[in-house]
């Protein structure tokens, strides 16, 4: 699997996701500078976490307008898989590749720590190595991860199985106790209609080694390798 990771001014988890991808594929992904409108053919585009453009104005808004995102939109339309993590989720959403939006955390504070997620489907490029209903532990680190969409959008998302992950308690219960940021219906990650674009707030790339936060996030990258190699 050949992966490309976008780098914006202010990105800061590009190294973490590169390390995770290298761990499962054995090869270094290419890093793409935001000003580059064109880049080599690739099996996967990753939009990493961070504070692109300082997260000023709205998280992801300025990055969504960069030349490289125009190219990403084009390739996504051709079916190239796109994974947006945290700030990447915000960017991809601002770029119109995913429905909904990410608002300030309900408690208005940055929050970093482990959360539990329920895998909502294993029927995707991104989640085939998980079981539907499986509970995994992965960290979050964000101030604006409060997913919001209107009722119509939510209904469509649910009906079409476009919800990838939900926050839950350690036993898998979906309730407010496991919801770190106030996301509507505990949504932590969503797909586009064709399930070729996925965005999620948690950081699977920071859960790939037992000594450093556990390894529950590894299967996400292994899923991609399985589907794309």
């Amino acid at each position: 699997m050949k992966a490309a990771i976008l780098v914006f001014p202010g990105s800061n988890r590009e190294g973490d996701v590169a390390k995770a991808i290298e761990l499962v594929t054995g090869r270094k992904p290419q890093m793409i500078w935001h000003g580059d409108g064109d880049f080599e053919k690739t099996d996967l585009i990753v939009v990493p976490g961070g504070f692109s453009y300082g997260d000023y104005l709205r998280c992801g808004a300025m990055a969504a307008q960069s030349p490289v995102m125009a190219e990403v939109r084009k390739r996504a339309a051709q079916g190239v898989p796109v994974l947006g993590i945290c700030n990447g989720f915000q960017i991809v959403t601002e770029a119109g590749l995913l429905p909904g939006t990410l608002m300030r955390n309900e408690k208005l504070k940055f929050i970093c720590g482990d959360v539990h997620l329920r895998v909502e489907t294993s029927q995707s490029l991104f989640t085939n190595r998980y079981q539907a209903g499986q509970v995994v532990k992965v960290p979050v680190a964000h101030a604006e991860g409060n997913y919001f969409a209107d009722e119509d959008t939510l209904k469509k998302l649910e009906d079409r199985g476009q919800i990838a992950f939900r926050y839950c308690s350690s036993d898998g219960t979906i309730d407010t106790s496991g919801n770190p940021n106030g996301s509507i219906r505990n949504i932590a990650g969503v797909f586009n209609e064709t399930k070729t674009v996925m965005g999620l707030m948690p950081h699977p790339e920071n859960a790939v080694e037992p000594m450093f936060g556990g390894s529950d996030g590894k299967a996400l990258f292994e899923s991609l390798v399985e589907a794309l190699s």
Partner: protein
Amino acid sequence: MTIAAEKKLPVKLPNEPAITPQIVAEHGLASDEYERLLKIMGREPTMVELGIFSAMWSEHCSYKSSKVWLKKLPTQAPWVIQGPGENAGVIDIGDGQAAIFKMESHNHPSFIEPYQGAATGVGGILRDVFTMGARPVANLNALRFGDPKHPKTRHLVSGVVAGIGGYGNCMGIPTVGGETNFHAAYNGNILVNAMTVGIAPTDKIFYAAAAGLGNPMVYVGSKTGRDGIHGATMSSTEFNEDSESKRPTVQVGDPFVEKLLLEACLELMATDAIVAIQDMGAAGLTSSSFEMAAKGGLGLEMVLDEVPMRETGMNPYELMLSESQERMLIVLKPGREDQARRIFEKWELDFAVVGHLTDTERMVLSWHGDIVANIPIPPLVTEAPVYERPWKLTDLPAVLDASAVPPPKDWNASLLQLMSCPDLASKAWIWHQYDHLIMGNTAIRPQDGDAAVVRVPGGHKGLAMTSDCTPRYVQAHPETGGRQAVAEAWRNITATGATPLAVTDNMNFGNPQKPEIMGQFAGAIMGMAESCKALDFPVVSGNVSLYNETEGRPILPTPTIGAVGVIDDIGKTVGSRLTQGGLAIILVGETQGWLGQSIYLRELHGREEGAPPPVDLAAERRNGDFVRGQIDARRVAACHDLSDGGLLVGLAEMCIAGGTGAVVRAPAGTAAPSHAFFYGEDQARYIIATGSGDDILAAAQAAGVPAVQLGYSGGPSLVVEGLVSLALAEIKAAHEAWLPNYMNAVE
């Protein structure tokens, strides 16, 4: 040109006032200091020149009150690459890698504007570290707030924590540890000490000394605005009621720009274009340019018109004294301007050639074609005021007899009360606002061990780091307190299995012109020096913050110790979480039951009295080396050093962190009363949980280390036979609830 340099007399700026005694005083210069200035200059200075002197001779930049004492700290060891005197200290951690670290205070700005004050404190310490070529890998922060009941405290906690997180999180540097205390002595003067640790190749470390006649000086980063003018002088004077009116001098940080600056600097450092580099911290362009030239024994000429300006109408005085953030000064090799410019422009940062090096040993500044300052550099350094201020040591208070302190009426309640008191309650509300996981190298997170442990990128080594000080001990007896702070830092690193290597300090004290405050400073230094010597734990960097007083009331003397250690195989590191039943619980070290200055005495009996626990450095070393050896031999499942709150608090922390209970009792023949045994704060002690209890006890006996088994881990409760029986859930709830409840409450 060189010959006539001193003859170039500066012109006055339009509307420049004449220098009056009042203006001199407003610049924080004493009248004898001004006399000294006149002698050096041989004439009346211009305002720009006066501003430069005032900044360079401020307490903050010149260390005039502390210098003579700081010299007493040991600074050398075979692994020290760079001790105090540069932007940060540098130690060799093997494999061609160096750890570069320093701690710095931003106390006064954080009191005035907690968010921005704390944020720019983090920004400043990060620059100190990456200016030397290191990529920062971790941040820590040591915070002291006033009484929780004081009306300002909640607002200050909230702003400071948000500011530290806001800056560090955006930079993508994990904030992995720190400490947080509350005491009424900080009501009007909080402490915000921030520490950064970075990693660099040992053969790619950058220093500040300028070299190379004619070499260009370039300015990079953000534009200069009117931020923090007088900041350096302000942080060097005591607070009073109207320091709140100095508010507009607060600087605003832009972590986004700092992140770009970090990447751009590291990119330029990967080339060979740099001769010297220095961040602009306190006193901005003045101290950075001055120090580079002084260290290199050179002069400099700067054309201030070239300085990138944020506002129109700025003048040379403002340009030289502004403390705008996110700026650096670099001396380049000749002809490398374009190469450097391309890098900074790619990162969308300002870049300007602002001057060049000369052999005049003078600082010559021009503005609109006129010379506006012309100062000889060496005398400003060599003749800077240095004070041997009168000092009076604090007498050792009488030792408190433990049997004269009443036992708790209700043991269960006493433990709950201690675990939920402000100093001991969980600080999770704080560190969950810090990204402590980014970079994917955090092996021991906050609350999971005595020190944070972070993998060194590119290998299996781990760096352990901690920050420690027990100000109430320092207040009671500065020498003991200084000794204890260093010993606790050493112990915290040891408890993870790492070898302690070196120290950075942040000396926060009151007004040094009072002999008893100067005595606290002197005493703390003497104590620290003894510990550093005995433990092979040199000081490689540090910071002094004086005049931490409000209306004449000083803070508790607080020499914060930041420390770093290394473990060769990070797989061997242990935390303090008790995650398994059936392990032997072993106490290492001797317990007399020292209740003087203990948290028990303060929280349960409202008394802050007695001598603090003595620090036996030979025992520290012996016990610590023993514990580290047992961890290295993989005999230890969990380890926790004992400090605030004593044995029972330490054990309770291990239990609730790991979700496993324990059943213990005082060993037969214990002389101390139970409350002194379980809550006393005797030093040089650790609790170990182990599956090889007998082996460890035998090894301890062979090594002459006091060690005794207290009981076993297991069950859902913490039980001290005959005294305490509490469900972990109840202890945990009390421990974790205090801070969030406090922060969510309103008066």
